[in-house]
């Protein structure tokens, strides 16, 4: 429930912000929100790929 509400709230913010940016400054809709969302996803994917490639190892009990 909380997650759904959070998602809905963020979506509303995103859409309103993009409309304002487009109307007032001619920025194509979705430019910065999309950059943030896609950039976030890209960083997560890259990090996970590096982790699987051996950048991380399991912690030892004494660490």
């Amino acid at each position: 429930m909380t997650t759904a509400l959070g998602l809905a709230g963020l979506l509303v913010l995103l859409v309103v912000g993009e409309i304002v940016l487009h109307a007032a400054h001619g920025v194509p809709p979705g430019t910065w929100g999309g950059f943030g969302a896609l950039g976030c996803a890209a960083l997560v994917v890259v990090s996970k790929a590096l982790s699987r490639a051996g950048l991380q190892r399991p912690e030892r009990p004494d660490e």
Partner: protein
Amino acid sequence: MSEWAHPAWPYLAAALLALALPERARPALLAAPALAVVLAWSMPDGGTLTARVMGVELVLARVDALSRMFAIVFALIGGLAGLYAGGGASRRLHVAGFAATAAGLVIVLAGDWITLYLGWETLAIASFAIVTDGGTPRAWQAAYRYLLVHFAGDALLLAGIAWHLAAGGSGLVGALPADGARVLFLVAFAINAAIPPVHAWLTDAYPESSPAGTVFLSAFATKAAVYALARAFPGWEPLVWAGVGMTLYGVVFAVLENDIRRLLGYHIVSQVGYMVAGVGLGTSLALNGTAAHAFAHILYKGLLLMGAGAVVHATGRRKLSELGGLARAMPAVLALYLVGALSISGAPLLNGFVSKSLIVAAAEAEHRPVVFALLMLASVGTFLSVGLKLPWLAFGGALAHAPVRPVPRAMLAAMTLTGALCALTGVVPSLLYALLPFPLAYEPYTAAHVFESLQLLTGTALAFVLLRRQLGGKPAVTRDTDRIWRAGGAWVTGRLAPPVARAAVALEAAADAAVSRPIGPMPRATGRPVGYAVLLAVAAIGIALLALR
């Protein structure tokens, strides 16, 4: 006699007094940072302090807007870290923390390379002592690794200075001619600035110190290096890419990291990357951005590490996989941490927004779209790990650790003050911009820029909500370039050191036998606590400052 005094003076006095004062009297030492801030603020433009030491004319201080800006924020953070440490911190931390602050001030005010080197070396020794304040075997091991890496850098710097002077170069701090000495300077500065691959000393050592020790550590070494790069290498193109690489390297590793202070350490690498890129761009807007971002970063990073330190203090735990649900137990810490997190993420009304914008705008103004886009991407990664992942895992969900110790009032007071400074310089950017080295015609609070930033943060948050399960803290250790010298160190101590030690013992015994025949037995060297090493370094700076005229 000069009409003004070096702002390192009060810190030097505080470091020496901390050696003698009992614990209950040490809060009185906070008068020193207040005096240092006043002294740094009131230094006259163009003012110099010189001294003749062993026949060499040293320019102990040369004031311009850039050095003043760094001096003010160094003087400020030393006091805030001292307040955060409170009366209960160890004597070692007070001595070494104030000595490190004094050394930082010596570096950013140094008019000549030799004075800068003296500060550089003292900072390494004081920082070593601060790392050992963690008090654990891991802290000591990390401290020795820190010292070895920094001594290597210091040796390169000294060699570079000697080469530069021998080749007839100017002894005054400034841009360097393109020769071999310049390479030595560059590597020495790169080590202190934590430019990959010579960065891992930072994420290795900083998390091992005490909570207050990490706050002291976060302020000086990397920013002193940024200052030195701005003096010696402005507009040097490779630094643009080194900086951009740092911003992304830091965020990728931070996304993976499980240790909260190590995660924040990677974000020091990332944020220093913005400053290094600014130095590389070299325009007045970019250099203003570097100076402003160094100022802002010292404050918001100090605040973030204060928040992480409060969590470590309250729970005794430092890993995201062992934390959770602290929002109810530590609401004030969470609120103040979020001020720092939003600031580093570039949220409007906070100082990170008004400083980072200058560097990004400089890249845009120079028609560098790739640099601009990658810096924006790093901003996304910053919000992802510092503003979303860390607070979600440490403060959200069910309480994973009980009981939670109360956070001392001194810690909260320091965090409140630091947060207030982040907000004040964010809401009234002219306070920050007035200190910049070059005239500035830039308005951060345009509707387009504010909405851009908000959209970037909202889009990142939206993706985080969808992907957060991928970011759960896992008990894993991230491999970084410190593996190289750890492996090398293991080989040296395991294979190389024993035969060398045996040979040294045999040589010493032979020398002892030869010498003791005419003059009797030689006294044996004894181990000295780290405090003595710090005291010696502090005394060396003190003697130099005493010779002021």
